[in-house]
């Protein structure tokens, strides 16, 4: 270094050295990781299943009638099988050795699929991001967060503690989690059932006529945002927590199952009450607030 120091006086020389350092670092990453791509021709409504114990999973829709699977492996002790059987593509990451560290036990996957693909995803830890896929979807994770964007179909999401975010999702949505937070934004779904035990929940979307929306937790905040033009038949009950509403509700039309002396409840109808909204918490606060 002492020999080089006089040379490193000019800005250009410093830049060259910096670039060299970056290239050296990049070279070392390339040397220890593998990038693989596979493509599969498929017909309409293909089924893609992914089983990835650890790592990031990104799935995007494209217009081609094929499934592209690309992955990066950080270790020789992990491999990914991607195989086609008829109109089904199965992607399975697995360990090649029982002696493997948590850092080595990782596969980062990126898939491109036709828009009408049905997805079945198991991704224990890491993250799951899906965009623009309109087929049915079943996502099952433990610690991995789930981020869906512009999805439709029948969406079933189950996590243990992974947080869940749905942006502009339509169709039917069922979510269960033990301690993950749930955010449902700009929704256009006609049927939403979401439950978490120890997470916060936010629903900010359209209440479609004849739609049903049920959010339930044990503790944590349930927040629902509405506009004065929304047509909802609302039921909000918290056993130990508070119910706070900014909606001017008319009296309910029917008796309610959870109307009891043991709970804090709010029942009522906004406009014609065309969408049924049921919010239930045990120890959490329920906020029904006007959309800003």
């Amino acid at each position, binding site marked *: 270094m002492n020999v080089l120091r006089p040379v490193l006086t000019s800005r250009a020389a410093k830049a060259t050295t910096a670039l060299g350092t970056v290239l050296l670092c990049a070279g070392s990453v390339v040397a220890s990781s593998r990038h693989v791509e596979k493509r599969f021709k498929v017909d309409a409504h293909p089924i893609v299943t992914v089983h990835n*114990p*650890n790592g990031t999973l990104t799935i995007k829709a494209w217009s081609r009638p094929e499934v592209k699977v690309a992955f990066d492996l950080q270790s020789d002790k992990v491999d990914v099988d991607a195989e086609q059987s008829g109109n089904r593509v199965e992607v399975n*990451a*697995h*360990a090649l050795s*029982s002696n*493997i*560290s*948590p850092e080595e*036990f990782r596969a980062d996957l990126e898939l491109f699929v036709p828009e009408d693909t049905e997805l079945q995803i198991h991704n*224990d*830890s890491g993250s799951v991001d899906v965009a623009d896929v309109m087929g049915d979807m079943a996502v099952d994770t*433990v*610690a991995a967060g789930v981020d869906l964007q512009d999805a439709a179909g029948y969406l079933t999401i189950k996590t*243990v*503690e992974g947080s869940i975010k749905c942006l502009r999702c339509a169709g039917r949505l069922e979510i269960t989690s*033990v*301690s993950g937070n749930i955010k449902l934004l700009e929704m256009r779904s006609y049927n939403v059932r979401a439950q978490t*035990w*120890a997470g916060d929940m936010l629903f900010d979307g359209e209440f479609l006529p004849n739609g049903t929306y049920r959010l339930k937790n*044990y503790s944590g905040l349930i927040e629902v945002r509405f506009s004065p033009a929304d047509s909802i*038949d609302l039921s909000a*009950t918290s*056993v130990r927590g508070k119910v706070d509403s900014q909606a001017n509700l008319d009296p309910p039309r*029917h*008796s*309610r*199952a*959870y109307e*009891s002396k*043991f*709970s804090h409840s709010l029942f009522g109808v906004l406009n014609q009450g065309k969408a*049924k909204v049921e919010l*239930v918490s*045990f*120890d959490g606060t329920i906020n029904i607030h006007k959309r800003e």
Partner: protein
Amino acid sequence: MPAMQCSDFQDHLDQWMEGDHSAEAQAHARTCDACRELAADLEDIRAAGRAMGEAEPPPRVWAAIRAQLEEEHLVGARGWRGWLPSFGMSWPRPAVATATLAVLVAGAFLLGIEARNYNNLQRWTEGTEALTQPIQANLGNFELHEVSALHGPNQAVNASFQKNLRIVDNYIAMCEKSVREEPENELARDYLYDAYQQKADLLAQMSERGENPQ
């Protein structure tokens, strides 16, 4: 004749489930979302019970439920509750744990409807205890097995399972406390059964990962 109310419809549920859909009940179901969904939920539970013919929890679990129902004259020789499966003798495999709990929760739900009608606090409390004690015992045994088998390489997943198992156990304890303090609090009891169901689901997930640790 005045239109049927929700409470009338719920009193009529037994006949409804037997297929006796009177004109009044049908008219009420057409206009009342809550009662229509209640009836639909019961149909779903019945269908699920029929589909679970292969589930094999310990006989003492079913015996406890049945004994309690019989003792309280809540079941007859034959009735629409007959869809509850008769169980065999073997210990449930992990894969059927969730199904087992579903049956128990369904039984608890049905007992809850009857208990509401009888409005008998003592019976209510004892019924809940009779139902939850075998569930607790079974889940406890199942948990011992699954937690000890949790040794996959993904430590984040192992830690997540254990952390969330503690969360659910904590909720079970709090729900039990609420049910003891307010035996008539239906929502507290629903949460208690939900918590048991959640624990069974969690243990089943742990079991699946244990069988396929990758």
